[in-house]
């Protein structure tokens, strides 16, 4: 059973979606480093020297291997082949940097760089290998959904990329980076890296004339500091597997646990990342290690989850409560929904009906003709048409959202769909935004977990209800494969508790939807039990 749960968590982790910013930045930086390296080779006039076969260059793999790489078999062992590979690599790297035909560019680039590595095996350093390992993942990702020519073209032809893209490539690259550091750490075999060698490794390396950027004289007075730096380097590399844990603890800071609290108090995640940045910048300043420090830093964006992260196909028409994040209440999940047109394909995805079951929700909530129903955090207005029909001409639907563009979108939608009994309001983040005693039903779908001070908000809900009115909170179960990250999910019991704290009387939690529960609550007036609730 535990294995099954672990598997479902793993699936849910890889099923998450997020804004494409981290991946886009990684794509740009990786391509820039590769392009810069290739251009440097040209600038120094060593393209043929590195990738042409002897006697023109040192590309021994082109002639000495039992089976030369396909580029040599196809085009021959010559300077021209080296030039051809270099040009294709440069063009592919430039395209990847610009995000033009990004996937094709990434595939082409990794194939050509691999050929160059086969031809010049000595020159295929760890950083070249790492950047090559990243390229196939970028090719499979939607890293070009932002800051790219591809995204610009898609917008121009009216088929923009979705605002959220699969997060698994970033997760995989995160794991890759962690493994690189850990592997580098445990492969350090020299005593100089440890206490037996007095932690003198860095000082020695900085005196090695093949690597040192400056005369070695400066090393002596800094010797104690370099010992500390050596120790820190080892600690940094060997502790890399803890980084996902630090990251997890930071994302779930509201949960109990002494280690979690300690990690967050000491900001261990940030300490680790800062060490990495300092470590690589220090290397760049003091050693001639080519693109190594820059190539490593190019991957650091994958360590940062974009603020806008949510599970796949997960509509979250919610208020943005970034500033109301209240840890005492498990916090509202920060989120922004600025461009309604970008979100509409996801929020109004026809496949949503299958799991959202809007008609069932409306039945459970007990919406009846003539009622005034408030749809809090209505987003692009997924429920509007159904609610409008349910309350009929004599009733009224008030759709609220705190995002102006969502409000604009719903106003246009209501006009377009001729929903004459729908009113759309821009609501404040901390209250329902409708007059006291004005609502018969308040529907809050996939939104409650975004709200910061939920108990205070619940008190506002109570005031907004008419006698006999009811509130319905529809949100994701803890086990659902959909929904917000686990840290931001709320158990039905907790929602009931929060509603009760606001002065409402929770009636029941229904779990007939595939991924969600429905918690209903009425006002404390004994004569006003939630009408229509079974």
């Amino acid at each position, binding site marked *: 059973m535990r294995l099954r749960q672990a598997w479902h968590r793993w699936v849910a982790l890889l099923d998450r979606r997020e804004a494409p910013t981290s991946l886009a930045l990684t794509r740009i930086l990786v391509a820039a480093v590769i392009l810069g390296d290739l251009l440097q*080779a040209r600038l120094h006039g060593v393209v043929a020297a590195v990738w042409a076969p002897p006697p023109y260059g040192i590309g021994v793999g082109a002639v000495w291997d039992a089976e030369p790489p396909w580029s040599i078999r196809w085009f021959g062992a010559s300077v021209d082949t080296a030039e051809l590979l270099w040009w294709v690599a440069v063009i592919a790297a430039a395209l990847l940097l610009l995000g033009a035909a990004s996937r094709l560019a990434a595939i082409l680039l990794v194939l050509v760089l691999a050929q160059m590595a086969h031809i010049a095996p000595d020159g295929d350093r760890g950083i070249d290998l790492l950047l090559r390992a990243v390229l196939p993942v970028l090719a499979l990702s939607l890293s070009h959904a932002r800051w790219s020519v591809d995204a610009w073209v898609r917008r121009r032809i009216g088929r923009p990329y979705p605002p959220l893209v699969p997060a698994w490539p970033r997760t995989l690259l995160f*794991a*890759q980076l962690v493994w690189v550091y850990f592997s580098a750490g445990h*492969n350090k075999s020299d005593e100089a890296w440890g206490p037996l060698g007095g932690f003198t490794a860095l000082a020695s390396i900085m005196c090695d004339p093949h690597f040192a950027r400056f005369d070695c004289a400066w090393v002596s007075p800094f010797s104690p500091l370099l010992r500390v730096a050596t120790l820190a380097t080892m600690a940094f590399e060997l502790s890399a597997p803890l980084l996902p844990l630090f990251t997890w603890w930071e994302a779930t800071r509201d949960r109990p646990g002494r280690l979690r609290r300690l990690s967050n108090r000491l900001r261990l995640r940030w300490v680790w990342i800062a060490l990495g940045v300092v470590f690589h910048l220090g290397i760049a300043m003091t050693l001639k290690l080519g693109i190594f420090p820059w190539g490593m830093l190019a991957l650091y964006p994958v360590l940062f989850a974009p603020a806008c992260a949510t599970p796949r196909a997960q509509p979250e028409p919610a208020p943005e409560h970034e500033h109301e994040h209240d840890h005492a209440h498990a916090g509202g999940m920060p989120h922004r929904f600025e461009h309604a047109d970008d979100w509409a394909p996801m929020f109004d995805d026809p496949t949503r009906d299958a799991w959202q079951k809007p008609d069932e929700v409306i039945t459970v909530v007990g919406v009846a003709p003539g009622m005034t129903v408030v749809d809090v955090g209505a987003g692009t207005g997924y429920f509007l048409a159904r609610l409008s029909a349910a309350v009929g001409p004599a009733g009224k639907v008030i759709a609220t959202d705190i995002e102006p563009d969502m409000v604009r979108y719903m106003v246009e939608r209501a006009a377009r769909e001729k929903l004459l009994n729908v009113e759309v309001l821009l609501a404040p983040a901390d209250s329902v935004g409708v007059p006291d005693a004005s609502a018969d039903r308040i529907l809050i779908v996939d939104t409650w977990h975004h709200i910061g001070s939920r108990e205070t908000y619940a008190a506002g809900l109570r005031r907004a209800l008419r006698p006999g009115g009811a509130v319905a909170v529809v949100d994701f179960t803890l086990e659902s494969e959909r929904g917000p990250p686990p840290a931001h999910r709320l158990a039905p019991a907790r929602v009931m508790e929060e509603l009760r704290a606001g002065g409402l009387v929770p009636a029941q939690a229904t779990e007939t939807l595939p991924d969600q529960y429905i918690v209903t609550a009425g006002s404390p007036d004994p004569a006003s039990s939630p009408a229509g609730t079974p």
Partner: protein
Amino acid sequence: MRRWPHVRAGLVALAMVVGLADGCPLPTSDRAPESLREPVRVIKAVRHAALTPFRPLGELLRLRQRWKLFPTAKREQVRMWIETRDTATRAWSLVYRPQDDEHTRMADPLEYRRIRAAWNPGSKGARTGYGPFVEWLAAELFAEDPSIDRVRVRMEEIVLEPEHGRFVGSGIFTHPKVMKR
């Protein structure tokens, strides 16, 4: 149940397991303790067999998951000397040496990632590209300077003394290669 997320999760897990299996450090048979040699041999054989289906992809993209960064930091290192011989006087002149501001001929191209590590002898001696590197270098120097008839590249053994802020040359040279015009 949506199947794709499960399939994708499986594929990602597989990629990670394959990467870890490939990158898992195992001692070479000569370095493993006697009692562990047989288990290590078996584990290596199993790993080799298990990774066989993935090897073509790894070979195509030339990927592996074993990472090293200065695994050794020995004090005994080498320093490359590049010298040319004047045709008329037969006198040798030092033209390039790393960390030597007075001998910097071709320093720019030579120091581009040390021509991709060609002149950076590895822990097991000179790299395979060292010979072709010297040939290429000699051709460049001969083309540049008609007055020379020999190019010599060799490595001086040095000892790093960071506590004194210096390295000390031994006067002993290894990896000598001389190219004639």
